[in-house]
């Protein structure tokens, strides 16, 4: 699925011709496909295919530059003397000469120079002046999907290829879209919501649909990975739309983890950790740092904790493996409240996910009792900071809504606003280091700050109080959102998703 700089669209589902989730991948070989985007591209390729592809690739690379000043600047020749215009509207890069033009300029350029092909600057789509339309040529689309980088050509696990594997493996019934509910087998919705997010995770899905762990070849009893494989088979190759009873998964979970046994509500986050661990083990997981199992490939990140002695300024760092970011919300909320805020104010306050991340990665004073400096010796006050050393393709974010004290457990209902797109760069070790340097050396001018854009892909919501609550989840397929509530699969809007009082959020890297 393509999404070069794709901005999210509101109300996709409202339009009549909505769900094209099943749009076949371009450039696939087994599906019927036109050889060229249009007759005119056909003759362009006939003249010099290698050159055409090379210039298109160059154009796509120009557009990939995050600053984007260059492709958005064009000469306006509307008046007598040319003026330089920087526009935020789409511009068009000529494929046959270095000109960059507005939409009007593009048409005039064709009249004057007979250059018929231009590349639109926001998405890199090819515009054919003869067709007077955008054309989607298989060869060009492949370059566009790779964003002009050759490296990605041989990466078969890319998100772009998600459908390729699915459709090439075997014949898939047209209705097998993976959109089914999971029956509540009696307080098992904590399991269902985690399974739904895994089912709609393109990386894990690719793994299972390309027979990454085929239950036919596995002899383990009550194997969780086999149960997962069974679910993927049921969801993506059976022509059924009713709910599915994940009995094997329930049994395998009970067999593997004593604490999960029984008819009782569990914590979805704890179940997720359990599931990740079990799948890691059953898919050739190793204990070493660089385990290459599907779970580690998808979710494995590292947190760096940097401690700086206040006296001798000695810095020590430690790395922690993580499968999610567990964020505090209680303190963030407290800090935001005016002292002496009324109960109503406390209930209404809304915090932002970015505030939670800021708080998670901010500097923190360690009292001397907590830190012993190895360099200057003895207990010293110090400053500690967490940062993300390694970002995985998919980042689960856990909002700490449940608090367990010895006596009882409570739930925080605080609203946490979260974005559809999240730039995680500011929370990385690299960004924090750069920030620290900046504050030391005055006059340090940062370059255009790089972005690590993650897109929201799933949301898990806990409704009700801690004991009798219910879990539901939202998952994104392409640009469409779906709500899963036990055995129901329902169309949802972006607005519905953003309204949700999230417990777990899943962000997926826009580019891998």
């Amino acid at each position: 699925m393509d999404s070069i700089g794709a901005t999210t669209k509101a109300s996709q589902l409202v339009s009549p011709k909505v769900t094209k989730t099943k749009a076949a991948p371009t450039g696939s070989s087994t599906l019927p496909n036109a050889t060229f985007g249009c007759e005119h591209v056909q003759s362009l390729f006939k003249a010099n295919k290698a050159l055409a592809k090379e210039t298109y690739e160059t154009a796509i690379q120009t557009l990939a530059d995050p600053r984007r000043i260059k492709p958005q600047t064009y000469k306006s020749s509307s008046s007598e003397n040319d003026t330089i215009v920087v526009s935020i509207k789409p511009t068009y890069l000529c494929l046959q000469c270095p000109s960059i033009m507005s939409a009007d300029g593009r048409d005039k350029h064709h009249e004057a120079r007979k250059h018929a092909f231009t590349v639109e600057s926001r998405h890199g789509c090819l515009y054919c002046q003869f067709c007077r339309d955008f054309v989607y040529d298989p060869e060009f689309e492949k370059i566009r999907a790779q964003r002009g980088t050759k490296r990605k050509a041989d990466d078969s696990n890319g998100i772009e290829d998600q459908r390729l594997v699915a459709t090439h493996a075997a014949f898939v019934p047209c209705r097998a879209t993976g959109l089914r509910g999971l029956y509540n087998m009696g307080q098992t919705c904590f399991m269902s919501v985690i399974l739904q997010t895994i089912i709609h995770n393109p990386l894990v899905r690719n793994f299972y649909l390309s027979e990454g762990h085929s239950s036919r070849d596995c002899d383990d009893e009550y194997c969780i990975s086999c149960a997962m494989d069974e679910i993927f088979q049921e969801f993506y190759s059976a022509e059924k739309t009713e709910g599915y009873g994940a009995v094997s998964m329930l049994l395998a979970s009970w067999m593997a983890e004593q604490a999960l046994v029984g008819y009782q509500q569990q914590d979805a986050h704890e179940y997720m950790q359990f599931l990740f661990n079990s799948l890691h083990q059953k898919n050739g997981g190793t204990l070493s740092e660089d385990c290459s199992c599907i779970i580690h490939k998808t979710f494995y990140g590292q947190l760096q904790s940097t401690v700086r002695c206040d006296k001798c300024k000695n810095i020590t760092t430690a790395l922690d493996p993580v499968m999610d970011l567990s964020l505090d919300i209680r303190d963030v909320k407290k800090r935001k409240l005016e002292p002496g805020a009324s109960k109503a104010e406390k209930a209404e306050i809304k915090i932002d996910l970015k505030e939670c991340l800021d708080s998670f990665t901010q500097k923190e004073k360690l009292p001397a009792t907590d830190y012993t400096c190895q360099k200057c010796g003895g207990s010293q006050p110090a400053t500690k900071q967490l940062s993300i050393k390694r970002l995985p393709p998919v980042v689960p974010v856990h909002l700490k809504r449940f608090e367990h004290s010895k006596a009882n457990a409570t739930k925080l209902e605080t609203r946490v606003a979260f974005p559809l797109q999240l730039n995680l760069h500011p929370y990385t070790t690299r960004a924090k280091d750069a920030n620290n340097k900046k504050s030391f050396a005055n006059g340090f001018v940062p370059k255009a700050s790089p972005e690590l854009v993650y897109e929201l892909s799933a949301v898990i919501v806990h409704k009700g109080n801690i004991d009798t609550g219910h879990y539901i989840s939202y998952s994104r397929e392409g640009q469409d959102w779906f709500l899963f509530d036990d055995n129901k699969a329902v169309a949802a809007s972006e607005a519905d998703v953003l309204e949700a009082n999230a417990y777990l959020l899943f962000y997926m890297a826009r580019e891998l």
Partner: protein
Amino acid sequence: MDKEKISQLDPAAWSVVARNVLDDCFHNIIHDMVLEIHREEKVLRMQSAVVIAEDTARAQMPEPPVAPVKGAPPPTPNIRVETTGAIYENGKTFLRGNPLQTTPEVICPQCRLPRLQYPITGKGSREPDLSKEYCMFYPFVSKPGHDIYGNQFPTEQAKTKKERELIKQQQRAEKDNTPGSNDTGTPPATQSFTLNTGSKPISYIPWQTCPSCKRSLLITRFAQHLEKCLGISGRQSSRNAMAKLTGNGSVSGNTPLGSRMGTPQPGSQNNNGKRSPTKKGGADDDDDDDKETPVKKKKKSNYIKKADRERLAASGATTPGSTHQSDPKIKLKIAKPKSGDNGVKREREDGDGEVPRKKIKMQRSESIRTEKTEGDDEGSDDELGA
């Protein structure tokens, strides 16, 4: 522009600038939306034009090809065919003109049937032309109180005991009367085709056979039943246990759980060490089990006997010794519904309209009803989906 010049701009000019920037932003949002939809639609139409050309070419082949297998790459005749939207030539297809103009209909590239263009109900729905057969991938329905396949949710307040039974009766009636409701093959060549929406209504709740006692029960009561059936005293604070296991919060990446995996609940080991986790319809021949008073020990032995019987039945004339060794594996394989043997299972479940079968179902539902009274307090809200 340097800073001074900017500050010299008069406020009126600023408002013009702000307006223009805002306009351009809206322009971009609309541009992106339109382009995305345009691409999706045009790619589908391109494929449709190709499918039409390929199918026309195949129809014109000297000797008609064998009926193409679904999904198999279609044969490539060495001829040249022109359709309105494309030219087919020796296995390759070239577009003619803009497929958005030449090819009004979207044909599914997989099953080669036309796609329904609008949802059948709800937002943006349109009455479909029922004289055609459509690809099974329908546009998803967006309608309050309905799922994406257009199935209506059962109304929550209608869950009085009587009504629940009514629903069950309907389900039974449906099970018995429409054996072919799941038939995915092409319908007979009549003039009008019926639209197959979701294959089961939302209120449909499948039966699940308990791997331990072989009783059939509604899947919504499975966890509760299994807990009792396995004799798990259960209710120990799982949170405390979990906290101990996962250590501190989310840092669980490398924690090996290996040692724990091997030691399931002692109480459940006997029962489950040898059991197939799911075996739908397995209780068919052994309904007498259902009527027995659920004394745990008795059940266990009973069950082993039955497992033996089954094993022998399944493996035919193999020696008992050899079946014993490979037993768990076989069981496990049986338990896994592969897409391949799905059809078979379906038939057994739904398509079977034999008379004795009905009797069995009645008995089953009775046993469920008695069970329901046991745990009535919790039972009611778990059916509401809590």
